[in-house]
């Protein structure tokens, strides 16, 4: 599936040139994975034939995309999907095997920040050296030195050797250098996982400012929240191929499906661990699913979008007021929510043998982004302990969007602050 949509023009963006800032056409990159890698001539001489066998890992496979100047472009994908390799090819660190890549203007990579410094040199020397490597002239590097140090908030540690820096400090320094080189195109590879919260916020503010100035930003991350907050457009890579491109929310949705969607519509046959099935099966849980407001079965849905859980039960014998139960568990297996008709509905009535009942539970979707599964059960009337059939994890839904809080739910809430 490919979702294509024109990039939305952000308000206040600089006028764009007709030429794309970054143009990738049919780019492919493979790595040879030798079955036995020989690192010395001696080994090669001793094993002249074995050394030739290798697997080809197609890290980037025929990816084409044009990124307009001023666009904030997200690249997402699972681990090993080729996003970092693509970025490194763009950064001019790896050469591509096939295709074409063009980057217009100065490029600044935010890749593996914190490495590349000479630990024996002071921050001062390292800044100049890094700025030169990034393409500044010595004069430009010196002129920008103060603002680089100011942004990194390292004024007091200028003449300290880098080996005495904490890792956070050197990352901050690297980030400052990369952001101050006045690049037209910024390649950002999951750098925001580092640094403390205030520095992260500062980085995002800086990206926003650069974006307003018409700079092009390519952003690799696992944080779907950030993708939806910042990006104009996003691309999803899977096994080196581009599987989706377009609206960040939709691409993020696809990403969640790829990640969690594997378990969506598994057949109900076969028992799972945790299933409790009575010997005298007067009723069977046939199916359970998540659905949206329109009643369509879904594998993923946005945070706060109307959600319902459905279950289907087939009766083999006559039953009076059986209790239908639904339990929702998160990825960690913790029960986030549980309900039964016993508790919140009341008597369900009489069911005849052969009858099939479909039960729906509409609920407010306050779940935080993660994967959730539904366990459905049918029990005899009473205290609910006399389970006839209980089927665990029949369906899974991925909640995306929303904020990444540390809680399992993001309840509607309001603060009040009183001071005296």
């Amino acid at each position, binding site marked *: 599936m490919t979702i294509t949509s024109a990039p939305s023009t952000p308000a206040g963006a600089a006028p764009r040139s007709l*030429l794309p800032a970054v*143009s990738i056409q049919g780019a492919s990159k493979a*790595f040879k994975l030798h079955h036995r890698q020989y*690192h*010395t*001539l*001696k080994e*090669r001489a001793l094993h002249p034939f074995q050394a030739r066998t290798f697997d080809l890992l197609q890290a980037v496979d025929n990816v084409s995309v044009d990124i307009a100047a001023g666009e904030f472009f997200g690249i997402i994908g699972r681990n090993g999907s080729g996003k970092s390799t693509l970025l490194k*090819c*763009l*950064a*001019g*660190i*790896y*050469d*591509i095997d096939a295709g*074409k*890549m*063009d*980057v*217009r203007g100065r*490029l600044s*990579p935010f*890749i*593996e920040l914190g*490495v*590349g*410094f*000479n630990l*024996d*040199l002071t921050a001062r*020397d390292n800044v*100049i*050296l890094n700025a*030169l*490597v*990034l*393409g500044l*002239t*010595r004069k430009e590097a010196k002129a920008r030195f103060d603002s680089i140090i100011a942004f990194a908030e390292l004024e007091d540690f200028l003449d300290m050797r880098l080996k005495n820096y904490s890792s956070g400090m050197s990352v901050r320094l690297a980030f400052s250098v990369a952001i101050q080189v006045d690049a037209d195109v910024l390649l950002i590879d999951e750098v925001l996982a580092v640094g403390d919260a205030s520095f992260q916020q500062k980085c995002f503010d800086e990206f926003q400012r650069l974006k307003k100035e018409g700079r092009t930003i390519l952003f690799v991350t696992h944080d779907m929240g950030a993708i939806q907050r910042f990006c104009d457009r996003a691309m999803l890579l899977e096994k080196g191929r581009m599987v989706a491109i377009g609206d960040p929310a939709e691409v993020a949705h696809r990403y969640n499906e790829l990640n969690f969607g594997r378990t969506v519509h598994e057949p109900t046959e076969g028992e799972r661990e945790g299933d409790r099935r009575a010997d005298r099966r007067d009723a069977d849980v046939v199916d359970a699913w998540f659905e949206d407001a329109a009643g369509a079965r879904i594998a993923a849905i946005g945070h706060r979008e109307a959600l319902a859980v459905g279950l289907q039960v087939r009766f083999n014998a006559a039953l009076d007021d059986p209790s239908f139960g639904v339990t929702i568990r998160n990825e960690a297996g913790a029960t986030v929510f549980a309900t039964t008709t016993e508790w919140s509905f009341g008597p369900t009535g009489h069911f005849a043998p052969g009858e099939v009942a479909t039960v729906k539970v509409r609920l407010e979707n306050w779940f935080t982004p993660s994967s959730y599964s539904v366990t459905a059960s049918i029990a005899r009337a009473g205290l609910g302990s006399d389970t006839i059939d209980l089927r665990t994890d029949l369906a899974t839904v991925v909640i995306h969007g929303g904020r990444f809080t540390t809680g399992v739910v993001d309840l509607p809430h309001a603060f009040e602050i009183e001071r005296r």
Partner: protein
Amino acid sequence: MSAGDSAPARRYGPSAFGDDLRRFVSLTYTLASTDFKLTYFNSILGYFWSLMRPLLFFGVLYFVFTNIFHVGSGVHDYSVELLLAIILWTFFLQATSGSVQSMLGREGLLRKMRFPRLVVPLAVTLTALFQLTTNLVPIFVLALASGVTPTLAWLELIPVIALLAILASGIGMLLSVLYVRARDIQPIWDVISQLLFYASPIIYPVFYYNHSTTSYAAKGCVFNSTRDQYLNVYGQVCKASSAPVGDNLHLHFIGHFLMVNPVAALIAQARHALVGGPLGANPSANFALGGWEYVMIPVGIIAVVFALGVVVFHHEAPRISENL
């Protein structure tokens, strides 16, 4: 990989040369000068430590070859010549051996930034060149102290050092890029450089074949094949010999063969330029090889090694960061 067509867009693969000569030069210079500064200002004795190694080596060799083996005792300026040869050799060794692991040393930069890859080994040679410049000071001091008169011929040292630097950077390019593929380049080069050391007239004098007198000579000693007598240039009898002409032919071959080695030819020429001396005492490369047409052999080797270095490096450059 043509750097930058008419369009403003560039091909974004890593390359040996990059597409901006100014940046190339400034990067090489910066990497070299920061490395140089590190060795010089990182310890209290900085400059002296970096001189210590060649000077200690010189001291030991000087003692051994003047007091024990007497190779240099009859030679007036043996100390100057020995020191000059050692310091030139130190430069060559530092530039080449330092290049072997240079890519590994710059791994951090190579894996995250786009810059011309050739900068890495060239910076090593340039650092060694900076060091050589400072190391020349004690040579001139020693030369003047030993009564060598400064002449215009001293300027010949400049092209000699330039050629040595070209040779060293050519070898450096090859070694740095081959090391990425084969880690045993390190011990291999250790052995080869040892061989080169003994194959070059550093601790021993220059052998040469004198066409005009058909006499074979070792530096300081002229020996006439017809008289089978070894004389040093000061007229003293070095060693009487009854060796047949065949042995001298053997020496003839070795003398020629050793001079084909560009390091040997350059060191011979440097000695000739700095010390000069009576005819035959410090033969020029031209004299030792027996004519300009023969001088073209070591010069040609330098050109071939450098060209090979450039070609191999250019070919390997795009894949250095992934093969490391």
